[in-house]
């Protein structure tokens, strides 16, 4: 029986072959993960984890620098950044009031009055 077993593939050979196959599977899977494009292809789908990416022009991205939020017709000016109103240095209101339309300046004046203490800003806007 022992001599017969020696003629067959040994248990060490079986473990070696199985380990070799498992190792090959692992190496292949790792290479595929490192170089494959099919796995990344689904990353662009809605469920693929695109959340958090900053999309230009996307109002939900939290960055509105390229949109006209203050309604003055100019994109990208300091007034278009949310939370910036009220921190604009003095003198800026004069410039805006002179270039923007009267409807724009009047609609923004009540909320900006406490933050612009200079009296000439009100007169410039109206």
């Amino acid at each position, binding site marked *: 029986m022992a001599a017969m077993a020696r003629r067959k593939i040994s248990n060490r050979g079986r473990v070696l072959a199985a380990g070799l196959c498992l190792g090959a599977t*692992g190496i292949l*899977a790792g290479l595929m993960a490192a170089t494959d494009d099919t796995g990344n292809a689904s990353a662009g789908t809605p469920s693929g984890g695109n959340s958090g990416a900053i999309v230009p022009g996307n109002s939900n991205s939290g960055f509105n620098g390229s949109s006209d939020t203050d309604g003055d017709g100019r994109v990208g000016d300091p007034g278009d950044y949310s939370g910036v109103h009220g921190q604009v240095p003095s003198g800026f209101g004069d410039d805006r009031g002179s270039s923007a339309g009267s409807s724009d300046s009047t609609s923004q004046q009540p909320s900006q009055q406490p933050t612009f203490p200079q009296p000439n800003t009100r007169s410039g806007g109206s």
Partner: protein
Amino acid sequence: MAGHTWWYVARAGGLVAWGLVVASCAWGLLHATRALGRRPTPAWMLSTHRYLGALAVVFTGLHVLGLVADSYVHFGITEVLLPFASSWHPVAVAWGIVGMWLLLAVEGTSLARQHLPQQVWRGIHLLSYPILALTTVHLLSAGTDAKSLLPETVAVALGVLAVFGAAVLLTWRSAPKTRTDPRPPVTSG
């Protein structure tokens, strides 16, 4: 990356299973033709051939398990067990499913060889050649990794070797009948 682990395991397992099917067929041919002589004993060749076949079944199971567990290509139990049940490349997937069932038939009849007539076992065991062809077609048509040139070249080369080996096997088996005839006059003389 982590979400596609099963997808990579399924693909890698399928490639390794295909390689094991090829290796098992090659080992069976080498065993049947005694092409390596008597240095590796026939019992060792046979047990290695059977072990390679068992490993092919195990890694085919890993391939199927990975496809079911993966979320990249949505496969259910039905889609991986029944041909043409999947909407994703149904014909290409069907080759692999048929090959899987034939592989299970060959492995099962080999395990129950003692309880089966020799002709039945041999007839089913010869399905190994269609299995090799089906799994190769499945690899080349459905496999994501068949885009590269290397698997195609290797598959064609192995297909040619399998056909050549089968021809050698048939020739080898028919040869001893002609060689046994001249012996009696030599021993009597």
